[in-house]
């Protein structure tokens, strides 16, 4: 094994100028040849990638996969059931890591699988560096694997399992008869649960049905070392060193096998890592990835700075308070109380307002109105005007700054006592946070406990998402019930995403969601839909 790979690697070095021949092979041999590398939609990722990719592919593929994994983590942080996670992830996967059905006429199958394969290995490199990262990676990847395994057709599942090379031996009919009562005892509760799930609620499952079901089940014998969990929980029959696994237990088995395999591989990867540092172009990319440095590309639809058709202006911006996430509400409160904000807060709020459609002129009006209640107009013009115009790219470097996402916000220095920036779920004392939640109408029930709990555990965005769901519960229910639009349940990663999602739901409710609203709602374009 080891030797074989080494030879391949050596070979590759000799063909370093091969990139062009690669192109011709696609054209001539067709994608079938290439697809032979990826015979199944799903993979244990046993072999590392051998072909070259551009630095750009390297990075974007990795980031796409990272987005998927982060979303999976966020689902589990919000303790979603597997079904719920499936719903949320379906869209994410289709967008960032599609693996389409083979029958679908598509020449991109190879490209999809290659992206999946490479991005997995890139993230292995990025995430093998600490125990904690490895643990997170294995957990998220295992869930991803499970999601995808369940998306496979029966035939695909069977073919995939056969390809795995596990030492399965089917139990003979004699063995099945001989151990009938043992197999029955060990499978009883899982089979019952299975049958119950498959029938109308309230229907009683009889022992006879369980027996009948087992009669048609294939059982496989597997050395007990392969199924430590089934063993430890005594949920399978063990005889002479072999565990008898029913077909119905196969998927959980394969999933745990994958998780075990991946963990071992990561441990091996760490040891192989020093050699990698030679290629210094990769190191910064990997470092960024492992820091979780990902800005969810927030697409502001390009309409915010010209803002003619925007509904937000300096006069009415306060009426949108309830659409803003807690961090922004807090900043808005800070300005209206003090008629001033320190630099960090000013930046955080100004970019956000820009993102919700406050034009440069309207923004200047807004800030002037507020600030001149505590200072002279001259002072404002002298000390602050430049700063606000700069934010819109109208001064200095003329860069079109983008609204900050939560990660950026949280990477800035923590707020001091008289500052309002940052993320309240992280920065506020729990009593202060409770007061703020109270103002949102969330009081003393179990939900606020959940929110506090999530913030305590450092799951700030999950806390924020939870609050969004609580505050907008009616509108979400309405949208779900009437099936009138896309209800995005992914985690909040960006304050403007929070805002746009809130606006979108309100408009659905009011029935004013139309063309204009759609394009206004940047997030429903970039994150929610598709």
């Amino acid at each position, binding site marked *: 094994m080891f030797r074989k790979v080494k030879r391949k690697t050596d070979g590759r070095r000799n063909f370093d100028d091969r990139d062009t021949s690669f192109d011709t092979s696609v054209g001539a041999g067709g994608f079938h040849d290439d697809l032979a590398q990826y015979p199944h939609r799903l993979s244990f990722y046993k072999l590392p*990638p051998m072909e070259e990719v551009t630095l750009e592919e390297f990075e974007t593929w990795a980031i796409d996969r990272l987005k998927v994994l982060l979303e999976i983590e966020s689902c589990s942080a919000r303790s979603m059931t597997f079904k719920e996670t499936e719903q949320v992830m379906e869209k994410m996967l289709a967008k960032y890591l599609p693996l389409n059905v083979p029958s679908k006429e598509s020449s991109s199958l190879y490209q999809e699988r290659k992206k999946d394969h490479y991005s997995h290995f890139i993230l292995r490199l990025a995430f093998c560096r600490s125990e904690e990262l490895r643990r997170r990676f294995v957990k998220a990847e295992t869930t991803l694997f499970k999601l995808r395994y369940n998306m496979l057709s029966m035939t695909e599942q069977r073919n995939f399992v056969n390809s795995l090379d596990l030492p399965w031996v089917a139990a003979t009919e004699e063995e099945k008869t001989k151990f009938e009562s043992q197999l029955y005892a060990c499978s009883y509760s899982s089979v019952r649960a299975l049958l119950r799930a498959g029938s109308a609620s309230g229907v009683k499952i009889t022992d006879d049905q369980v027996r009948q079901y087992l009669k048609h089940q294939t059982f496989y014998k597997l050395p007990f070392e392969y199924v430590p969990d089934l063993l430890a929980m005594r949920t399978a029959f063990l005889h002479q060193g072999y565990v008898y696994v029913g077909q119905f237990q196969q998927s959980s088995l394969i999933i745990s096998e994958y998780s075990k395999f991946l963990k071992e591989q990561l441990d091996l990867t760490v040891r192989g890592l020093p050699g990698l540092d030679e290629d210094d172009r990769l190191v910064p990319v990997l470092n*960024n990835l492992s820091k979780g440095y990902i800005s969810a590309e927030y697409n502001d639809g390009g309409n915010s700075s010209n803002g003619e058709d925007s509904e937000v202006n300096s006069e009415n911006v306060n009426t949108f308070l309830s659409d803003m996430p807690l961090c922004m509400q807090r900043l808005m409160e800070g300005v209206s109380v003090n008629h001033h904000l320190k630099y960090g807060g000013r930046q955080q709020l100004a970019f956000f307002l820009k993102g919700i459609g406050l034009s440069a002129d309207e923004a200047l009006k807004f800030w002037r109105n507020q600030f001149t209640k505590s200072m002279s107009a001259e002072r404002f013009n002298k000390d602050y005007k430049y700063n606000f115009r700069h934010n819109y790219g109208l001064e200095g470097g003329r860069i079109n700054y983008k609204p900050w996402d939560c990660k950026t916000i949280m990477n800035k220095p923590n707020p001091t006592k008289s500052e309002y920036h940052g993320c309240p779920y992280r920065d506020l004392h729990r009593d202060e946070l409770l007061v703020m939640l109270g103002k949102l109408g969330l009081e003393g029930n179990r939900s606020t406990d959940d929110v506090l709990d999530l913030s305590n555990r450092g799951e700030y965005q999950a806390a924020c998402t939870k609050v969004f769901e609580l505050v907008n519960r009616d509108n979400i229910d309405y949208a779900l019930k009437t099936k009138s639009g896309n209800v995005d349940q992914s985690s909040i990663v960006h304050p403007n995403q929070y805002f746009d999602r809130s606006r979108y739901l309100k408009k659905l409710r009011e029935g004013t969601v139309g063309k204009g609203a759609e394009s206004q709602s940047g997030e429903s374009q970039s994150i929610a839909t598709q």
Partner: protein
Amino acid sequence: MPSFEESDPAPISPSPAPELPSSQVHPATVSPTKHQKENDQDDDDFIPENKTKDDDGDQKMIFDDDNEEPELKSSTSEIEKPSIIQQSKPSSSKSSSSTTTTTSTKYKPSSADMKHYYERYLPFKSIFLWLNHSPAPQTDFTMREFAFEYKSGAYHRYNSFSNVSEFKSTVLKAEPTRFEIGAVYPIEPKLRKQVSKNVMKPQMKEFVLDIDLTDYDDIRTCCSGTSICEKCWKFINIAIEIIDVALKNDFGFKHLLWVFSGRRGCHCWISDYRARVMDENIRRSVIEYLDVLHVKGSKKSNGGVASLNMFRKPYHPHIERSLEVLKDQFIDVVIREQDPWRHEDRYEDLARAVPDYRLTNALMKYWKTTTDRSSADKWLDVDKYYQNLKIQSFDLQDWKKEMIFKTMYPRLDVEVSRQMIHLLKSPFCVHPGTGNVCIPFDPSKEKFNPLTAPNLQTLFNEDEEHVENTSLQPSIDLFNKYVRELMKEELSKKRTRDESKENLEF
């Protein structure tokens, strides 16, 4: 987006260093990396968990190395220098044992006795063959860790020997009160200072089990603590019966060695190749499979009683089979002989174990007023009140089975079995507190009786010079037979292992 300016399409490959892929997942294939765990525990300072409560209850001094200060002091002021070579013996009157036990204070082996025993009696060669699996020394033995324990309480880890004569001569010189056997490492443990800590990860070890009567103190009434008698030893014999059949029938292990621990329990060593190469994760699952009650160890549940869903019906075949063994002996061993619920301080245990509030209260009230009802009476009282009160919240027969299980099912030490770095006293060592020899025995031949086990004193009375003439010899014969069978299988298995390895390489 991450700050990455370069859009240079220069080809790069994400494939890392070439040693990354390894698709070997079969546990029977041992690669030097396979069993490395992220156990960042400082091995040198590691005190096996049960050390502090081991047979004597002494605290142990742990010496990292010859010239370092002890990290844990025992009650004696005298610190024995643990160097193997220049051994200055402390006078035996200054014994470090701070806990005096209620029994067997009659005889404690002296240094001279021990020396003589090591010289003439202890079957070093057999132990060597047992651990080495072959007549000529191989790494199974040479890279094996041995630990010495001294009279002072000092505990010296990471000894290793290149052959049987070095093994014997070192023990003779060092004169430990006993020695323990640990895992096989990738290098000789005595050379561990020459390699990085990451290398010193255990590769292989026999799978071991430890059963001790002190874990039965909530049900024993005949004795407590370190003392034992024939009545309570029955719990150990029951445990052996249940574990033995599970290891053989369920796991398919063949080479089981049961060893008396010298005072109040026993060990089981499983030497099958498949058992030796298990990693800690698998060891944990095996022991959890067996440890139905999990009375001890990490997963401690309240009151040390397993939750009821362990006994969800239909019972797992292992539970069902164990129940058959326990059922027959419950009345004799528990109800009659231990009579555990006769007195006020314990009958609450029985009443509270009933999963119905009304029934519990009724029983408590009755037993409070009507004193001196035996456990047998009380066991029947439960039936009576169950009927009278027309209890329907639980099934009485199921509950009785659970009670039988909870009082008698083997109580295992999970950590001893799980941890590969854990050491266990060698067979044929002498228990320093009793002088009993830790002899192997075959439970399928006859039930072991610890009260008639060979003791250093009696052995020397039998014959001072020739072990063949003493009652130790049958145990040595039994051990040798066991080792021969193990070696025979090992050699044939090894041949096929090597062959298949070669096949892979070509």
